[in-house]
């Protein structure tokens, strides 16, 4: 029953209303990845 409640908890959390058409912001295009190390 705990597992069920936990799932229910997540289900409840997941019902947080999001604005219509919400699109997570894309990762910033630049600067790009660091291939070695940053001085």
């Amino acid at each position, binding site marked *: 029953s705990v597992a069920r409640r936990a799932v229910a908890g997540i289900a409840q959390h997941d019902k947080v209303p999001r604005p219509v058409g919400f699109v997570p912001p894309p*990762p910033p*295009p*630049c*600067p*790009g*990845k*660091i*291939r*070695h*190390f*940053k*001085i």
Partner: protein
Amino acid sequence: VPAAPPAPLGCDDPESEAAAEVAVDYINSHSHHGYKFTLNTIDNIRVLPQGPNKEIIFLELDLLETTCHILSPTPLANCTVRSFTDHAVEGDCDVKLQKVKGQLSVLASKCHSHADSSEDIRQLCPDCPLLVTLNDTEVLATVTESLNVYNGKSTGAYLKLLEIGRAKMQYHPAHVVSVEFAVAATNCSAAEANVEACHLLPDDQSDFGFCTATKVIRPSQDLQVNCQLYGHQVPTPDTPLLSRVFWPTSTT
């Protein structure tokens, strides 16, 4: 409805990486001194459409010095990036390219390099040797002595100094000078006495090399020299033979 403008290129997009690769190849093949540089980060990219199948691309690149001298035939992919504790050197480059029918070419590039700050290295490695200026008297003395010792023991061609690539100094726990320098074979054998008459081999026979030397000044006096000749490299049309760069016709 007009087509939406294409989304701006990301710095890690394949097109950006392809442009950066062309830019780094151009920078290394048009550099005449020092070491090869490799790509560390694409800091920014801007694309300006110039009509059908033509774009101008502006790249801001962050490069890192490798341990390969610019004369080394070693492919860049096999060149080790100079480590942080070996006193790394960073290059910042702005490059303008054009892309015509998918073909990339460099129109202009401007770079400047700078060594990492000594404080950064001291924090991580208090006793690491640090870069010193190339005209430091102990550096010049170590290079001269190293080349004399090498030529004195060599059974091959007499080697002349092309340029000092880098020099580091350590003061604790011992006083040690480490130098790296580029050399070129001359038309004399090392055994020959009159070295003043020696001159670089003509372009079609040129043979460059690279030497590293470490001289312990205190507590003992010890000198280790190691030189490696690359063998004759066939000059390619877009990379001027460096002997003309290092030793212009009016030899001074």
